[in-house]
């Protein structure tokens, strides 16, 4: 890994419970906690029901009463977004986990085995990585038909090659590290060296990358839904909200733009946290 400079001395720091946390990190943490709460107990954040129909109040623009407005059935969009968190985060987490499992298996096999096996895996991974992830996902959907499970698998498979590439790179990187040779020079056997040094050090940056990846997965999943290829509309999964709102873009912009904004904010928060973690880990390693 290249040695990354420590965060600039000029970066503004605030004291937050004696932890030195940047304001952007604090905001990201709040967003992530909010989403977690919405996932676990949505009824704590709103007292409306996501399915309560109000035919007298359809297509209302955002107001104090309905911060995100209402849809064609008069349902409160804000409430629907909160209740959609569980399904969206489920897909995001599941897809990232699936991608990681595939990636770690392929990456470690390739990185440790070397030779022919490495060449084959690397070739396959490079080809699929270079390939547009959306197309890969669409191929999966066209085979399996749209559903939540399909969406999860599609996003997972679509993002796996990128991670696999990184895991392999990381394994090769750590393999060359002087402390690996130093451990061998002390007389540790190959398995001890892998278990004690190689595996934990190669996995270290992946924690940060996974955090980053969850945000990306949510965005990917919503892109599929936006095309009408994700979870079908009655659901309030975020992508499904986008799909449902498309018809009304020209008249009721909030149905499309506000759920989209929520997705972006969540993705940004995840990215920002992931980056912070990355800096922390690299800072400790360099």
């Amino acid at each position, binding site marked *: 890994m290249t040695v990354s400079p420590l965060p600039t001395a000029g970066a503004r720091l605030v004291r937050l419970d004696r932890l030195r946390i940047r304001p952007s990190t604090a905001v990201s943490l709040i967003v992530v906690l909010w989403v977690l709460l919405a996932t676990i107990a949505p009824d704590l954040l709103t007292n409306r029901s996501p399915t309560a129909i109000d035919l007298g109040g359809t297509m209302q623009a955002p107001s104090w009463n309905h911060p995100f407005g209402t849809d064609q059935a008069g349902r409160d969009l804000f409430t629907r977004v909160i209740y959609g968190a569980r399904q969206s985060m489920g897909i995001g987490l599941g897809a990232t986990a699936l991608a990681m499992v595939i990636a770690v298996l392929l990456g470690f096999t390739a990185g440790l085995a070397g030779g022919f096996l490495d060449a084959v895996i690397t070739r*396959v991974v490079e080809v699929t990585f270079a390939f547009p992830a*959306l*197309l890969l996902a669409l191929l999966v959907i066209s085979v399996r038909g749209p559903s939540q499970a399909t969406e999860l698998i599609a996003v997972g498979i679509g993002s796996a090659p990128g991670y696999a590439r990184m895991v392999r790179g990381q394994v090769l990187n750590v393999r060359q590290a002087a402390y690996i040779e130093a451990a061998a020079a002390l007389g540790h056997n190959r398995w001890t060296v892998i278990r004690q040094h190689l595996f934990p050090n190669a996995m270290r940056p992946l924690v940060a990358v996974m955090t980053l990846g969850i*945000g990306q997965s949510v965005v990917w999943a919503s*892109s599929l839904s936006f*095309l009408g290829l994700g979870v079908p509309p009655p659901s309030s999964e975020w992508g499904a909200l986008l799909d449902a709102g498309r018809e009304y873009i*020209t008249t009721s912009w909030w149905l499309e733009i506000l759920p989209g904004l929520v*997705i972006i904010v969540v993705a*940004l928060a995840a990215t920002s946290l992931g980056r912070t973690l990355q800096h922390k880990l690299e800072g400790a390693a360099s």
Partner: protein
Amino acid sequence: MVIAAASLTFLAQLLMPGDRATALMNVQTGQQKRWTAAELAPVNKEFGFDRPLPVQYLHYLGGLFRGDLGTSYTQHRPVTQVIGGQLAPTLILTLGALVTAWVLAVAITVLTVKRTRAVSALGSTWEALTASLPNYWVGVVLLVVFAVKLPLFPVIGGSNAWGTVLPLATLAIPLAGFLGQVTRDELEKVLDQPFVTTARTRGMSDTAVRLRHALRHAVLPAITLSGWALGALVSGAIITENIFARPGIGQVLVTAVNTRDVPTVSGIVLVVAVAYVVANLLVDVAYALVDPRLRGRS
């Protein structure tokens, strides 16, 4: 790469749940039922499902070499015909967006990297924000703001120049953010390199050093990533074409996925794979032009 993609798409066609002929009849008629062998026979014959798998595979690959991508399940036309006319608008859109994104990214980084803290922060925040915007959201916002609220551009794009502006911006803005982030990181590193100091000690101005020395080094990672970026652009183009109802392979593709017309999807996947190989060759050429160290190697 193309052969790998072809094998992958062939495999995808096999993986359709259940018997392919049955699935096909269901797709075509919109019914869910068991078909008799007699009813399935003509389908099996038309698409060659009755032959052994290796023969099918070789036949499929052989067809690819002759430029035959198979027959659409739904339209009963060769896939090449279905895709053919739609390629040009997509190509124009993606290449246009790539060029625009590069110009934006380079301009913003050169102007804002390592300036006063406020200016640098502005540049990097802009990049971080735009890089994480999904295409669909950018597209919708642009559509609502510049076509609905301020009717400057047509809502239904079409493929003329005026209608291309918003789709192009939809694709270019997030990509510019992404390329900008990569270039910014690199430019920051490069500006700390001793050769930059050397150039300054010769009496070169800061701006001249950026343009004549540092930029050339700083664009290298972004060039490498441009091959990958083209993939992201194709993904984005599919979405953008849908938002602006713009002709292109994106429209065909989404319809095909919805009707589970696997040969058409596979055909598009293969066309993109070919485009991809060409794009990566171009990237290698561009890289070698900028970085002479790689010439004569490999």
